């Protein structure tokens, strides 16, 4: 699983910028899908986001104490951690300083990374 993290996820971008990001993201995912290695994914919305804490307190917004917010994830079928990393390197998210893509193996026995 490739997890996207943004710095200042609340910063609003212009419609033009969003369009450019959309194309870059779709092209990037398209490239992985064309290799038959795409397994699904989702963007995560900020609207209506909530966080529930250990004493059942509910606050608005995503996990706010950390500067980075989760933007979304995709699942890829990679033959090795290195291949998964090479996919991650192509993510448009990395254009922003401080952003990151976390690469994690799914905890299943079926060889899906």
């Amino acid at each position, binding site marked *: 699983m490739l997890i996207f993290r943004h710095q200042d996820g609340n910063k609003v971008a212009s419609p033009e910028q969003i369009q450019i990001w959309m194309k870059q993201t*779709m*092209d990037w995912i*398209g*490239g992985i*899908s*064309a*290799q038959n290695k795409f397994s699904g994914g989702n963007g995560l919305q900020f609207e209506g986001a909530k966080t529930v804490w250990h004493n059942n307190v509910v606050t608005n917004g995503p996990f706010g104490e950390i500067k980075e917010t989760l933007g979304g994830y995709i699942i890829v079928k990679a033959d090795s951690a290195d291949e998964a990393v090479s996919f991650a390197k192509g993510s448009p998210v990395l254009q922003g300083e401080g952003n990151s893509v976390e690469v994690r193996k799914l905890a299943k026995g079926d060889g899906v990374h």
Partner: protein
Amino acid sequence: MEQQELIPHLFRTEYRKIVSVLCKHFGFDQIEMAEDIASDTFLTAAQIWGFKGLPQNPVAWLYNVAKNKAKNQLQRNNVFGNKVIPELKINTSTQPATEIDLSLQNINDSQLQMMFAICHPFIPAEAQIGLALRILCGFGIEEIADAFLSNKETINKRLFRAKEKLRFEKVQIEFPGKTEINKRLETVLTTLYLLFNEGYYSESHDIVLREDLCLEAMRLTYLLIENEQTNQPSVNALLSLMCFHASRFEARKKNNGEIVLYQDQDETLWNQELITKGAYFLHRASQGNTISKYHIEASIAYWHTQKTDTAEKWENILQLYNRLLQLEYSPIAALNRTYALSKANVLHGKTEAITEAEKLKLTDNYLYHSLLGELYTDIDNAKAISHLQTAISLAKTPADKNILTKKLVVCQQKANPGSMQ
């Protein structure tokens, strides 16, 4: 219409209606009987009309004769049943239901029900198409063999086994229930898609036959649209897709079987009426909450009806392929996507596309090498030539090899501008 033309024409249009109603009536257990009665009816027509001339209402005549033959058969069965085997699959208590209902409603219902019964996940796709052609479209065994580039024995065996399986699994000729219908509709749509493909890509030299297959697929899809329960967005999308593709039928192949590539096609031969129909059905498909792969394919096909090369066209096609591949991967879609990339992302030129293409690693696929050959042209002609040569060796049909050889020659001339061919 001359009598000689009339009977084959009526066979094509009426056989399937009669056989669907009879099949539904008799069930899969006695499907051969239904087929025999239907065929027999036309045989009788050929004999009697030859003598007595054409009846005033040939269709009504056919239906009458079919009903009578069926009635006789049922009475024979009944005698057999009452005297020999107490339980036979005839729906009756005292009197056999000898009324064969050949009303328009029942004809359409029966054909739809037969479609669901035939396009059943229990039998292989080839068999589904074969049975559909035979029972729903009235094609002869030889015609089916020709379409599949096979022979009569193979087709007969395939159909026989399929019917046996349907009998064994006790498949009913009826409309699937509400909970099942969406799943079963998926199988039906796949079969219709494949049937259309058979006509579109068939290597058979019979151009008329190939076009007929496409038209039959479209007609059957339209039957689904006419019925409220099956008139779903994905079905409209499929019909849209078929219309767009069929619009280029005239322009795609020369009479000698040679393929004419899209860029070289004569636009004036594109059927505008079909293009309009395609747009209409795509519009009707644009409702509901789900997108099927047919929606995406139809949208791509729509863009291909605009011949002019614009960045907008190719960007749209690229994004559609991006989505299609997420939904369902296929090597062809991956290759087409890469081609679209090379045309859309003009800033990065062909080098980006080459990198993406090589990641696909479809080295056994002649289209893969053909694409790389095209992309490498003018960038690295030596590599282009090498890929085209591999493509030619992997290609199967003479028509395909022909096209690739032409590309190769162009490439070689670029590599050695001084040499003359």
